[in-house]
């Protein structure tokens, strides 16, 4: 068990180090999410109601996450490193978990700026809304990293990832928006937690088959 977690930590650390060095994905995601907020301001007609903005937050988050996910496996593609990781004696699911953990860190880093910016531009977010974002992050990273690995095997890489991801992201958006606007956020938060648990288990169990021939 400690070996497994050590492998996950090794891999996640590698991704953080690579991003700190290249510094290309995080700034792009940050700029993207802020630009999207400004677009939303112009896209929302007057009197749209405060709930509309909450919904748009989730659109912004999902598409920003997609931006980051599209490049998440790029370092592994460049040197053919995927083979190297698959050859290593570590559990293949550790490869997925390490990458998903790193993507989660990136997403949270973006949100640390994006959520206050949203509160500034549109309206404040309460604890339930933030909890919804936090829970949905796990689902986005778990499923997104998995699908990004699948898309990496496809000819139409960047094109296909959004198509694979969006239907699976719909429940997350429902849960997230629900926890923000509903007077009873508990149900939605529970739903998000269940989504995370169910899909994380599936990803964990099937990643092996995605990377082996």
């Amino acid at each position, binding site marked *: 068990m400690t*070996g497994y977690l*050590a*492998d996950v930590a*090794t891999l996640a650390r*590698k991704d953080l*180090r*690579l991003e700190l*060095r*290249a510094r290309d994905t995080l700034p792009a995601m940050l700029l993207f999410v802020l630009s999207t907020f400004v677009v939303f301001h112009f896209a929302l007609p007057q009197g749209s109601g405060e709930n509309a903005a909450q919904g748009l937050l989730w659109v912004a988050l999902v598409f920003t996450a997609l931006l980051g996910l599209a490049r998440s496996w790029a*370092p592994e593609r*460049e*040197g*053919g*490193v995927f*083979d*190297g*990781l*698959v*050859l*290593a*004696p*570590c559990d293949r699911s550790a490869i997925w978990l390490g990458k998903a953990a790193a993507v989660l860190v990136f997403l949270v880093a973006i949100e640390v700026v994006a959520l206050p910016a949203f509160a500034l531009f549109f309206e404040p977010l309460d604890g339930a809304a933030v909890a919804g974002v936090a829970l949905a992050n796990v689902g986005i990273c778990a499923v997104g990293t998995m699908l990004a690995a699948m898309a990496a095997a496809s000819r139409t890489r960047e094109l296909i990832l959004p198509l694979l991801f969006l239907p699976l992201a719909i429940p997350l958006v429902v849960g997230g928006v629900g926890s923000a606007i509903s007077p009873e956020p508990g149900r939605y938060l529970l739903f998000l937690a269940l989504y995370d648990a169910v899909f994380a288990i599936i990803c964990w169990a099937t990643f092996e088959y995605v990377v*082996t*021939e």
Partner: protein
Amino acid sequence: MIQARGLQKRYGSKRVLRGVDLDLPRGGFLVVSGPNGSGKTTLLRLCAGLALPSGGTLAIEPERGRIGYLGHESLLYRDLTALENLDLYGRLYRVPERRERIGMLLGRFGLWDARNERVSTFSRGMVQRLALCRAFLHDPDLLVLDEPFTALDGEGAELLDRELATLSGERTFLVATHDPHRLAPLASERLALA
């Protein structure tokens, strides 16, 4: 160490290997030769455990962590340094006395001075040498090397020759090459793919 009977590999309807037989005993040195497209790379990938056969039997004795592989691609992160790359693999392979072993290999392949440089700054020959370090890092029982002399300059080739000569008795080798004559003195068996 490796035994294959009637080994087949298909990618969709394209048949790459059509019934290959292979016997590689412990301590052996098998040289695989053949023209481009004859399936050398596919055969080596199967023997390294990177792909599953479509037909026939394939028995590979060492487990995943005891196999070293060198492919056409470097399997190295371009934006990490030589040291960081080897440290990553060292941790994943649970190499004992990791730092000492990495230092020793870098020295043996003439890369010690470049240890803190990113792989993206390396020449093609240096990348190949580092890839060889990676393959040898965990002191594997079985080494599967796909055209290891590619891109190596005279000095690099000499270093590799020396390594192969030193290890050829104790470890098992499966090497694909365009130039079987170079390895003729070390080879204990040969396989020519059509």
